[in-house]
């Protein structure tokens, strides 16, 4: 019996590993070349083990396979994931950061070990201000590690949720779209080209001056080093003084051209969004946006209530929903049977949407900030975030499950103060949502003024 169970688990893990591998190759790294395969392996392994945890929850609800083998796999999975998140990934992040710095290239291993030790120190210190453990646990137990990973992961989840809850209606609704005409874009482009022309004429002067200086035998040396700077104060050829002056003007103009470029790109993006909102899909999303804005306001309200009145929900939505239907609406049905299926569907939806949402966000993030040098480090950071996110999802999902399914999570994760994590989630969610509203409001206000200015 257990032999079949183990092989099923193993097979599913290979499946998840393959999926992570494909995602990495096709989506994340599609513009870069994978030179260090270890990065891809680590990413896929983290993804595989994180997904296995969710799969174990589903199995728990559906009561598939042997209960003791499930418990064993829970423990094993948890150990492996913690090993990866606390030991492997941070070490490799440090290693790749150090590899990028040319100076420290020789003693890469030494410096990456040092970085890892610093990380461990701060990671440990993280546990002090939070009331997350009862004192009877040992130093190197799973509970210690999980509690800290949970804090970081829950903070991340709440930050992302808060920002997402506010940003989603803002992007979907066309109410917030600024009115951009083709004439605006043309005007900006003309300004951009004019600035480029000014830069070019100054550079032409500089190039000609350099050439005449070269022919006359003077050489323009940029003041380098301490003595160079001292010397340049006292003696400087008139040619090179001229050059430095023009160079300063050119620097200012280049900064202006960069600003204009970014603004023009912004206008093009807004124009595309306006066109998109006129299509059928756009109108559908616009409607969704209104719906989500109501949902967002409700969530903020609930978070405030939870914090102010210091209450943590005791029952999960499924049981609560069934209670309401049975008691108030008078509909009778087989509670046990339906609660299992409904919680499976609910938990399944939560899991799938959170995985999908996280992968999409990570991909967007990766495209925005990575370059060919830093791509390895960033992917590993994303793997770390993903692992911590999924571990804390397991922590928090406990609240959405009926009591009989919660026991396995409580057993496996040990005696953590689950209530603390929910409270912490609410606090960070509130903070993140409110500051996102403020941030978006400021950004929205500032933009039209830039275009009004001549």
């Amino acid at each position, binding site marked *: 019996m257990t032999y079949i169970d183990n092989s099923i688990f193993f097979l599913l893990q290979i499946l998840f590993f393959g999926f992570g591998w494909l995602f990495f190759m096709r989506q994340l790294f599609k*513009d*870069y*070349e994978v030179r260090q395969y270890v990065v891809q392996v680590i990413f896929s392994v983290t993804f595989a083990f994180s997904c296995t945890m969710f799969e174990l929850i589903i199995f728990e609800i559906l009561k598939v396979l042997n209960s003791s083998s499930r418990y064993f796999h829970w423990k094993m999975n948890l150990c492996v994931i913690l090993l990866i998140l606390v030991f492997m990934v941070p070490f490799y992040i440090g290693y790749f950061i150090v590899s990028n710095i040319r100076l420290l290239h020789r003693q890469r291993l030494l410096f990456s070990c040092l970085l890892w030790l610093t990380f461990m120190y701060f990671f440990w210190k993280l546990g002090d201000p939070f009331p997350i453990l009862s004192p009877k646990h040992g130093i190197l137990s799973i509970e210690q590690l999980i509690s800290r990973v949970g804090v970081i992961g829950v903070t991340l989840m709440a930050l992302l949720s808060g920002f997402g809850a506010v940003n989603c209606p803002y992007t979907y609704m066309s109410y917030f779209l600024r009115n951009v005409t083709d004439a605006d874009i043309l005007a900006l*482009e003309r300004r951009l080209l004019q600035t*480029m022309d000014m830069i070019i004429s100054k550079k032409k002067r500089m190039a000609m001056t350099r050439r005449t200086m070269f022919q006359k035998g003077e050489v323009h040396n940029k003041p380098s080093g301490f003595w160079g700077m001292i010397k340049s104060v006292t003696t400087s050829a008139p040619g090179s003084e001229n050059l430095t002056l023009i160079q300063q003007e050119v620097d200012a103009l280049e900064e202006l051209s960069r600003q204009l470029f970014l603004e023009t790109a912004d206008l093009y993006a807004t124009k595309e969004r306006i066109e998109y909102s006129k299509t059928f899909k756009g109108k559908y999303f616009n409607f969704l946006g209104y719906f989500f804005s109501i949902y967002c306001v409700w969530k903020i309200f609930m978070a405030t209530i939870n914090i102010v009145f210091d209450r943590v929900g005791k029952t999960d939505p499924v049981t609560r929903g069934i209670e309401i239907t049975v008691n108030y609406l008078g509909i009778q049905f087989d509670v046990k049977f339906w609660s299992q299926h409904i919680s499976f569907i609910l938990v399944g939806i939560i899991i799938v949407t959170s995985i999908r949402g996280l992968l999409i966000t990570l991909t967007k993030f990766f495209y925005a900030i990575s*370059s060919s040098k830093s791509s390895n480090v960033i992917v590993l950071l994303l793997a770390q975030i993903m692992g911590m996110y999924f571990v804390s999802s397991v922590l928090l999902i406990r609240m959405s499950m009926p009591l009989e399914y919660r026991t396995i999570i409580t057993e496996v994760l040990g005696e953590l103060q689950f209530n603390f994590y929910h409270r912490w989630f609410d606090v960070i969610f509130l903070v993140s949502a409110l500051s996102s509203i403020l941030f978006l409001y400021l950004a929205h206000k500032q933009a039209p003024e830039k275009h009004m200015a001549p």
Partner: protein
Amino acid sequence: MASLDRVKVLVLGDSGVGKSSLVHLLCQNQVLGNPSWTVGCSVDVRVHDYKEGTPEEKTYYIELWDVGGSVGSASSVKSTRAVFYNSVNGIILVHDLTNKKSSQNLYRWSLEALNRDLVPTGVLVTNGDYDREQFADNQIPLLVIGTKLDQIHEGKRHEVLTRTAFLAEDFNAEEINLDCTNPRYLAAGSSNAVKLSRFFDKVIEKRYFLREGNQMTLSPICWQMFSIWIPGFPDRKRFGGGTLKSLHYD
């Protein structure tokens, strides 16, 4: 000093291949100390003597427009970039010898620049499918430059150089492989410097002389003979000895 005529050359390639270092080396003969990310487009100017050493020597400004970004950018960024592709006289395609993807992306880069007159449909040609006919038809001179040559191991050099030779052939262009942090690759008289001069001359010809017909037949031979007779002489002698021709263009 009256104003000289100008030609516009685009420098395209993936981010991080070394376009800014290359442009800095070409225009200021110095190595760029602190390369940073290019946002938008940065321009630099090189003073070039067309048909150097011949009686028809004339000085031109070559504007090198270094357009930043990646092929996979959002379409709004691509539309903004398109404004720089107006009236281009030559294109330098830069790729990183240590990164195969950057060489493959050169097809997409060239299509983006050459097809800017067509409506951008968002469907980009993948590397397998590009149309050689398009490049044979193309009037704009291309040059392919591979950077970071010093980071290629001696053993793998042959394989890499064969691959890039095929690449340059596909574009119907010359190729130069160098390391942007070492000016000796473009030292005067070296074959790389000759190829570069030849490319710039071709750009200037296509822009200014093509309509005027065949002033070209005799001059390249004279010019090449000069460069064979006087190989590797330093720039200084060339400039100091001759007189600067009048810079008026009638």
